[in-house]
């Protein structure tokens, strides 16, 4: 760590939290590079593993909604995913045949309308099987005052729903239902002093573009100030808005962890040719995943021991895997 002592560590990245609540955290990240801040944003949106309903076995559906309509809705219901990175396996990496309590959570839904009034089926009506990886994981997130959660469907007299939902661990890159955040606000240089954006205007930028809420955190360009072509962005305003699966600070930590594991796995694999590197950075659970190598189906979730197997021999010509493209 010789060169970055003065570049990074001396000043050190800084974080200022401006606002926080049950489901969001707003903070400014300082003294890191744009590329790193953007990596953090990307990783938070697309690569933090959480739980979501992925498989639905429908026994009865006499509601007005078609099966796939309901399945899609069920998939989008946020489920508590506390510690699921450690406690829950990916189904494709699990030793079981199809799914089991270590790699999935079963939720059952049974509702029938027997009165003349329209009956609403809520997320709270999902019954969570207690045979699961940890005592939180898979419970629907319910934040409303009545404790009912989101409406899944409405039933008329005589209509019935009976189904078994299997929730699995996944990442947002594969499907947005696995994204732990509704949005990550990301802004830098609110006065556009770096000219990274070209603001369209008719008469005057100042009149036509309202100032962002972060504008007061930075000095506007002075009258007659010259444009500095060497200036670099330095302060990034994050607004992380969770969905309830994970607490906002957990989201940040998980994001950093995912990024680190991603790096460590590659470094570790590179370290096979160079013994000293790598090893020490990897989490303890690095060992082999029990010989299910052939189940690497297209997308390997980065950092989760992905490359620790099958690393012998050359790739097929031109690097194409027989399993086709990933889920990007």
């Amino acid at each position: 760590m010789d060169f970055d002592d003065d570049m990074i560590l001396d000043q050190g990245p800084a974080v200022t939290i401006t606002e926080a609540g049950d489901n969001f955290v707003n903070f400014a990240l300082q003294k890191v590079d744009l590329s790193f801040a953007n990596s953090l944003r990307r990783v938070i949106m697309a690569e933090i593993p959480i739980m979501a309903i992925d498989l639905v076995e429908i026994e009865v559906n006499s509601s007005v909604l078609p099966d796939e309509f309901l399945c899609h809705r069920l998939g989008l219901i946020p489920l508590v995913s506390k510690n699921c990175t450690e406690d829950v396996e990916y189904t494709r990496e699990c030793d079981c045949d199809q799914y089991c309590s270590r790699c999935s959570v079963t939720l059952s839904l049974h509702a029938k309308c027997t009165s003349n009034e329209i009956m609403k089926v809520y997320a709270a009506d999902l019954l969570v099987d207690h045979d699961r990886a940890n005592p939180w994981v898979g419970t629907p997130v319910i934040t409303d005052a009545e404790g009912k959660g989101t409406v899944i469907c409405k039933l008329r007299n005589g209509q019935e729903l009976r189904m078994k939902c299997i929730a699995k661990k996944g990442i947002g890159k594969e499907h947005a239902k696995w994204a732990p955040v509704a949005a990550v606000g990301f802004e830098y240089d609110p006065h556009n002093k770096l000219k990274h954006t070209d603001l369209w205007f008719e008469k005057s930028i100042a009149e036509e573009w309202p100032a962002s809420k972060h504008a007061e955190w930075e000095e506007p360009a002075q009258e007659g100030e010259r444009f500095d072509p060497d200036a670099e962005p330095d302060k990034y305003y994050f607004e992380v808005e969770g969905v309830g699966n994970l607490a906002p600070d957990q989201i940040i930590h998980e994001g950093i962890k995912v990024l680190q594991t991603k790096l460590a796995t590659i470094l570790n694999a590179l370290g096979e040719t160079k013994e000293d590197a790598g090893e020490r950075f990897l989490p303890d659970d690095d060992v082999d995943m029990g010989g299910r190598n052939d189940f690497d189906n297209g997308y390997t979730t980065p950092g989760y021991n992905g490359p620790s197997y099958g690393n012998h021999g050359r790739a097929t010509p031109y690097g194409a895997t027989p399993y086709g493209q990933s889920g990007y």
Partner: protein
Amino acid sequence: MAPNKSTEEPVAAPASSQEDETMEEDVALQEADAANPAIYNLGDSRIQLLPGGDEFNTSFEFQKEDHTLGNALRYIIMKNPEVDFCGYSIPHPSEALMNIRIQTFPPYTAQEALNKGFEDLIALCDVVADTFTTERNAFAANQESQMQT
């Protein structure tokens, strides 16, 4: 990766010293050019060396990686004073491939620069995580004291 690959010998065996490694890489590069112009496997099946170049001017191809890794890695490698040039590209948006080019000042090799890049980025993540935790605790404590008054 195809499951039937596991019987093959590892291409790059662990090298005990720095010199061995450099030589080995040299041999490997020639071998790669002869056997298959497109690819040489670098231990991790997701990283390959692209043809053209030597151990100080190397292009690495990462499978299943994107801007998340590419840009941050590019930046941190460029911070290394031993590195002359580092750039990355995603050759085609519908292929999950990311290429990173590293040119170093000999005798420092491109692979050393890559390794150091990873280590430094991990260290940077640690610092940011710690800073965030400290700040969050301070923020929570501050909120609590405001609630009391």
